[in-house]
């Protein structure tokens, strides 16, 4: 049973990722992300990371995906963009990726990954304790990163608004 669930979730993730990468229509690509995000959320559940899975759905499906959709739809002529540095062709890319896949696959298959019994399902309390105990420093630094990113994005966005307003 768990194997089937895993395979179904992996298939959902990979197929949607394929749509994201290969679809000619950027809207379909964006919607393909929905499947990838949901598949990953499912994989988190099979790994007993329930909190992470919920966050994945809330933040990525509910927030990030919506934002990307807005960005795509509000950008004028996004599908007529001229690609300034075209790729080197499908065949070399395919060969390279296939070689990489074989190399990574061999290594992953040969390695004896350590495994342990799964901990109990509700992980939220543990995460909370970790954030306010052992991992307090990264938790606090995350807030500084976010503060900096917020200031930076306001600076960049304000400039763009001023520019179009000045021209108009």
């Amino acid at each position, binding site marked *: 049973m768990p194997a089937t669930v895993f395979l179904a979730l992996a298939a959902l993730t990979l197929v949607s990722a394929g749509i994201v990468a290969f679809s000619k229509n950027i809207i379909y690509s964006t919607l393909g992300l929905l499947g990838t995000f949901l598949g990953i959320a499912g994989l988190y559940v099979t790994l007993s990371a329930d909190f992470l899975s919920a966050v994945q759905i809330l933040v990525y499906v509910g927030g990030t995906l919506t934002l990307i959709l807005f960005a795509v739809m509000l950008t004028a002529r996004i599908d007529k963009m001229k690609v300034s540095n075209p790729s080197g062709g499908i065949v070399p890319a395919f060969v390279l990726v296939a070689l990489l896949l074989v190399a990574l696959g061999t290594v992953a298959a040969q390695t004896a990954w350590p495994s342990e019994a799964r901990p109990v399902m509700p992980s939220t309390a543990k995460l909370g304790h970790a954030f306010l105990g052992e991992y307090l420093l990264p938790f606090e630094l995350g807030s*500084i990163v976010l503060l900096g*990113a917020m200031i930076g994005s306001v600076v960049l966005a304000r400039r763009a608004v001023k520019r179009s307003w000045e021209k108009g």
Partner: protein
Amino acid sequence: MTQPLDNLRSLAYFGPELALSGAILLVILWDLVVKQARVAGALAIAFAALAVSAGLSVQAIVSGAGSRGLFNGLIAFDGYTSLFRILIAFVTAMVLVFSKPSLEEKSAREPGEFITLLLVLTLGMNLMAASRNLLMIYLSLEMVSVISFVLAGFKLDDAKSSEAALKYVVFGGVASGIMLYGMSFLFGVSQSLNLSDIAAKTAELTAQQGKVPGAVFVGVVCMMAGFGYKISAAPFHMWTPDVYEGAPTAVTAFLSVGPKAAGFAVMMRFFSEALGAVHDARIAGTVVDAAPWAILIGCLAMATMTIGNLSALGQDNVKRMLAYSSIAHAGYMLLGFSGMSKVGVASIAFYVITYCFMNLGAFLVVMAVAEQNGGDETVGAFRGLGRRAPVLAIVMAVFLFSLTGLPPMAGFVGKFYLFSALLETGGTWSWTVAVVGVLNSVISLFYYARVLRVMFLEDAVATEPTTVRPMFQVTSLALAVPTLVLGVYWSPVYDFVVRSLATVR
């Protein structure tokens, strides 16, 4: 090593970072509340915080404080961290000095935000040098990357600057994605984010299998994407020329030194603490343990030097040329590391110090020249500079000779230590890498000499003396003096470096 300290007791050793965090908040508040002397006040706060950060670190090295794990072992407090903290504080302070004139102009937009972001970057770089946990490595790298994106796009209404920022974002996203993938391999094998746990597990598996396990190798190769991106080593150097050309010159000067130094700091700590690959000196038996890493780093070093130097030959824009030259210098530093010895780490730390003087200086001269020529940064703008602004031209010559690595400049001594650290380890491989390095130094002479020829041997269209901001002249002289002095009398600085590295583990 002593037991890692808990959160509360770690704060006593966390002064530099606390000062920087406090200054970040203070600058935001100051910029918001105060009407008069907004920029001057914000700068004063920033300089004070940087002075505290550097001062506490100097004190830590001089007093010989032992190595400790802070915050339950997430970051390290040792001479290595302190040394890089001093360097990073110096670089940030210099860049604030560089950008002071443009920040104080009436038309300057968001000067407060610029200073705030620069301080956040400094904090991130300090943490990069101190990280001894995969989570902290990732978080501090992202902290530096995200803010650098914004700074690269800071130039007013300039399409090139926006392009630079966007390219930086795209490459940065890819690089940190690959790095996270590599981390997942390491975590999968060792079930720990702690570098020392990873080292223990790797050593155990290496002893079992008789070679470095495949998963660890893949993990490290992928992590090199993140480190290589920060130090702009091939094949992750592609963003460098565009970003360096597009970003405001003060930011370019900063990016070419600060994140590069921090990138080397985090990379060297990773190799030494997570792989146990860095040895006191190469003894016959230890060659096997370090072999794949020495070859990996050696290959990267050769590729980086060659690509950087060959691409620099055809550049007409001096900023772009210096971008390729900074790639080449990342290659030289990797060369020093490919011996995988502690002497190599010391030689890189010393080289970063010399590099920071000469490279900051070269960018400062470019900035001063471009300012006088309506933003023209091509080689043509330097024509006849020897006659029009002799001080600036001579100072630039000092920086360029030093970057080439000619005696009696600091660059020569730095390069000497890098090569001798490599050759001390011996073997055919070291000699191959060293020969490629020497050939590259010869190539580099061509493009540096081109600027020199234009400055001193060609006549400019205009012959009247150029007026250069006194501040630029003073600062460039202040950077040229150490570049010269360190070329003749370097032992106190080198001893200081060795002494601060002695407390590591």
